[in-house]
């Protein structure tokens, strides 16, 4: 029988702080500050500088929120799809892709809800109703439901590999809805207007054009900031799970360390930290079998 190993011998490999910084970095702080400044500029120009529209009057100010938020929703879901595709591609498979996918899905779900809320407010102002059975509106609501299902699915699967694999497959279906949603105004007769900004000669000018462009920059920076932090958080959660498991292993081994002296006594020296509550259960995963057999 081999002698039991001490906690020092089984200490987990540390993930370098440079790979997954536990705190924000100057780059992320700069990104957040840029998002804040540009959002402030959008608010100022949108509410005070930009003139009312000839036809929509004051309600045109929703133009500086709703299209940018909807575009960021699509962009985040596209990143979710990219991450899922990267995970499903055997030669590229890495936890980084899964982190990108979950970050995209969560940020996309937030912006999808914001799209529905701002669209509903704008719809009440221009169409007279909070909700109408418009093709794009309905598909966006379905997309929101799909994204909630995706996130619920991720929470329901304990095994990290299975979670990544299954949720990547579900994400590919979400992408199909995003594509249909994007082209809904061209394929079906809907109340939504066609592209306003991204064409050779935009149909808005002056401060309206500038403010709308700034809103895209502001929400783009906000999306990037949220994505970076959610990606980092997912990596930290993975690290927390792994280290929680290793701490549990160390604690169990320290209990049986003085086996020759009879009875279970605490190991000398500093006590290992209490096992962290893990998403995958403290004694599941690659090291669980070893504990069970001891």
């Amino acid at each position, binding site marked *: 029988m081999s002698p039991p190993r001490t906690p020092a011998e089984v200490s987990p490999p540390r993930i370098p702080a440079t790979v997954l910084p536990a705190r924000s970095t100057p780059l992320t702080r700069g990104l957040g500050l840029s998002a804040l400044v540009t959002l402030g500029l959008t608010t100022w120009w949108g509410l005070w500088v930009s003139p009312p529209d000839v036809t929509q009057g004051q309600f045109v100010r929703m133009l500086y929120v709703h299209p940018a938020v909807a575009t960021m929703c699509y962009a985040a879901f596209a990143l979710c799809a990219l991450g899922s595709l990267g995970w499903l591609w055997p030669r590229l498979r890495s936890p980084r892709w899964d982190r990108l996918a979950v970050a995209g899905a969560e940020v996309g779900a937030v912006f999808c809800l914001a799209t529905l809320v701002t669209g509903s407010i704008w719809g009440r102002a221009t169409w007279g109703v909070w909700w109408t059975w418009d093709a794009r509106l309905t598909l966006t609501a379905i997309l929101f439901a799909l994204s909630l299902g995706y996130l619920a699915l991720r929470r329901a699967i304990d095994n990290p590999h299975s979670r990544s694999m299954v949720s990547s*497959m579900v994400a590919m279906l979400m992408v199909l809805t995003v594509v249909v949603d994007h082209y809904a105004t061209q394929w079906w007769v809907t109340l939504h207007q066609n592209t306003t900004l991204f064409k050779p000669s935009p149909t808005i000018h002056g401060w309206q054009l500038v403010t709308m462009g700034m809103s895209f920059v502001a929400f783009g920076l906000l999306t990037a900031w949220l994505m970076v932090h959610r990606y980092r958080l997912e990596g930290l959660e993975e690290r927390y799970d792994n280290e929680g498991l290793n701490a549990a292993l160390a604690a169990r081994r320290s209990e049986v360390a003085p086996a020759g002296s009879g009875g279970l006594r605490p190991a000398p020296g500093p006590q290992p930290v209490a096992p962290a509550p893990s998403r995958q259960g403290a004694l599941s995963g690659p090291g669980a079998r070893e504990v069970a057999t001891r």
Partner: protein
Amino acid sequence: MWRDAVLVAAKDLRIEVRAKVALNQVVPYALVVLLLFGFAFDQDRPLLEQAAPGLFWMAVLFAGLLSVQRSFSVEASDGAIDGLRMSGLEPAGIFLGKAAAVAVQLVGLEVLLTLGIVVLFHTRLAGAGLMLATALISTACVAAAGVAYGALSMGLRVRETLLPMLLAPVLAPVVLAATQAWRAALGLSGGDGWRWLGLLGCFAAIYLAGGTIGFGALIEET
């Protein structure tokens, strides 16, 4: 693959014939749903006639969820899915077989529900070709997507609640297209029902192809 599909479909249908769960529980449930829709619309006959196609397909969706859950609860008990996985059958064959068994049950249910809307909602049947084609393709969509998502949620603790949450949004476009096609067939709208049928065909192709390709990975991971 096709031989495996026939074997699995025959196995699932044999279980249903013996257990009679579809007959004793799913069919009565779907008919009760139709009755409840009648209460919800306050027995407004013109409104019920107009809404009958949508109510029919909603009832099919609800019953389809039960059929899919039943199809995989059979596999989840006593580790039956492990036996199926190690039997040497092709995963694509298992997928197609299970989808075919669910589809056969749903087609039987749809016949009864059609009688239900004729009797309860005074629907006058017309455009039999379009109605029949829509029913068959929509059933293929519900069965294929249902079996794929059923496999995905089979091993999860919260499968009873997660499956409807995942499947209902996925099948929402199918319900929409099938309803519009039936409305056109019954003369309740001026739209072109065959275009909706084309859209349903695209959905069916995507779900069947996706399920056939990904089913092996799904049952390995869950």
